[in-house]
């Protein structure tokens, strides 16, 4: 039996919950078909999270590619199909990426599993992002190094804690509805052990009575707690938080059944959501908005 999971027209961090709600009751060894025919847009989070869905299934899932030419071509430009073809049984038109000059894709979807991958990601983002961050997002030239540091630490979360590989992608786009400004978005998604299990693996760690995914996220993201006893650990996410604070950005991390967010004034998200449909690993999104300067 195959269960059909409908992908929403716009696939992003929020609407991905619709996918997970449909997926949650389906046993992992049961075949699923993700129907993306009517999907018209996807954020880096939507695409990287979609790849992690395939990693969680015992039976190779099927995916129907978007029907819209423009959408399929964009998904190809992000490098999505390169990995999707390995993980999914593909249906519909799978577009091939064509070389193009200007692109809003700062970093194509890139697998991250080991330290060398982080070096690769950081090297590539520095080449491409500097001019865009300065010219399009009005971010201080000096801060572009901080952007690469943030990306590095976010990716290392996979290398250090996930226990299996994940994906990263970076893109800029105009966030007309919510913000009316350009944003740069980093998505880092994996289907590994997740924050709760990672912290539980710490030797000698005592769990409180209300220990759950939400509390694990609070510990790791807000208080910088790590599974390692080394006091220098936990600085990566603290660094990410500092960077987004400096540039009025947003950080959100989903793990297990909870999602935590550092919410800037321009957004109306809630700081903590619990009792979400369960999903393995950790899915992170960092959003840095265009800086408004007094002219």
């Amino acid at each position, binding site marked *: 039996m195959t269960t059909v999971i409908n992908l929403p027209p716009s696939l992003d961090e929020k609407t991905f919950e619709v996918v997970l709600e449909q997926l949650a009751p389906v046993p992992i060894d049961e075949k699923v078909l993700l129907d993306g025919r009517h999907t018209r847009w996807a954020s880096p989070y939507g695409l990287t999270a979609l790849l992690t869905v395939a990693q969680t299934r015992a039976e190779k899932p099927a995916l129907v590619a978007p029907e819209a030419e423009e959408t399929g071509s964009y998904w190809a430009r992000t490098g999505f199909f390169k990995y999707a073809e390995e993980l999914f049984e593909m249906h519909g038109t799978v577009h091939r990426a064509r070389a193009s000059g200007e692109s809003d894709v700062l970093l194509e979807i890139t697998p991250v599993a080991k*330290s*060398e991958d*982080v*070096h690769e990601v*950081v090297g590539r983002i520095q080449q491409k992002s500097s001019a865009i961050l300065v010219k399009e997002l009005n971010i201080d030239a*000096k801060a572009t190094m901080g952007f690469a*540091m943030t990306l590095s630490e976010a990716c*290392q979360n996979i290398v250090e804690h996930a226990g299996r590989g994940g994906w990263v992608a970076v893109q800029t786009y105009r966030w007309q509805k919510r913000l009316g400004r350009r944003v740069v978005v980093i998505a880092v998604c994996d289907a590994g052990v997740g924050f709760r299990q990672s912290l539980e693996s710490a030797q000698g760690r005592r769990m409180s009575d209300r220990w759950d995914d939400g509390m694990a996220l609070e510990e790791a993201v807000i208080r910088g707690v790590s599974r390692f006893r080394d*006091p*220098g650990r936990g600085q990566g996410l603290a660094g990410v938080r500092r960077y987004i604070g400096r540039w009025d950005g947003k950080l959100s991390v989903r793990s297990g059944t909870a999602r935590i967010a550092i919410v800037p004034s321009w957004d109306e998200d809630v700081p903590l959501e619990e009792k979400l449909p369960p999903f393995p690993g950790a899915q992170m999104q960092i959003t840095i908005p265009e800086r408004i300067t007094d002219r």
Partner: protein
Amino acid sequence: MINHIDLSTVLRRTVCDLYSDLVTRPTGAAVRDGIEKQLSELGDRSLTVIDFSHVGLLDYSCADEIVAKLLMRYADDSAPRDAYFLFRGVSDSHLDAIETVLERHGLAIVAQADDGSVMLVGTLDDPERRAWEAMNKLGRSMSADLAREAGIAPEQVERVLGALCKRRLAMELDGGYVAVGAVT
């Protein structure tokens, strides 16, 4: 003896000859091992310039592995040798990562700017900072002179100077004290 370690050379030699960024913990740990290997070939007492000039990006994890762990090892009572460090070629973005990890561990370093001037970076209490600045101004000095210059009570100055030496920010030399950075 003053030793010079170019971190980009250590990075290429120990991790990958294509890299110029100090990112990830395994990279930082490998570079620190490379530094320690070089230190083990020096005498019992050494001052080493750790040069960041040709390093691109330094992230928090790597700063923790290289700067913080190196300092903690040599500030410990069980340190393998009497080693001191001066950090050179540190850019603003490097400083961001380094200051963060130093604050986390309550450590401090001496960094040298392009014009040769030196400054303290990290966590120090007020008497320590004043004593180090007095030492940097006066050059090699006796504790009584430093107490007077820094405005520290004579009965407290030895403790403050001892703490600076233990923290690798100053060294005892010929019966006096000298700031790291003032002897290069």
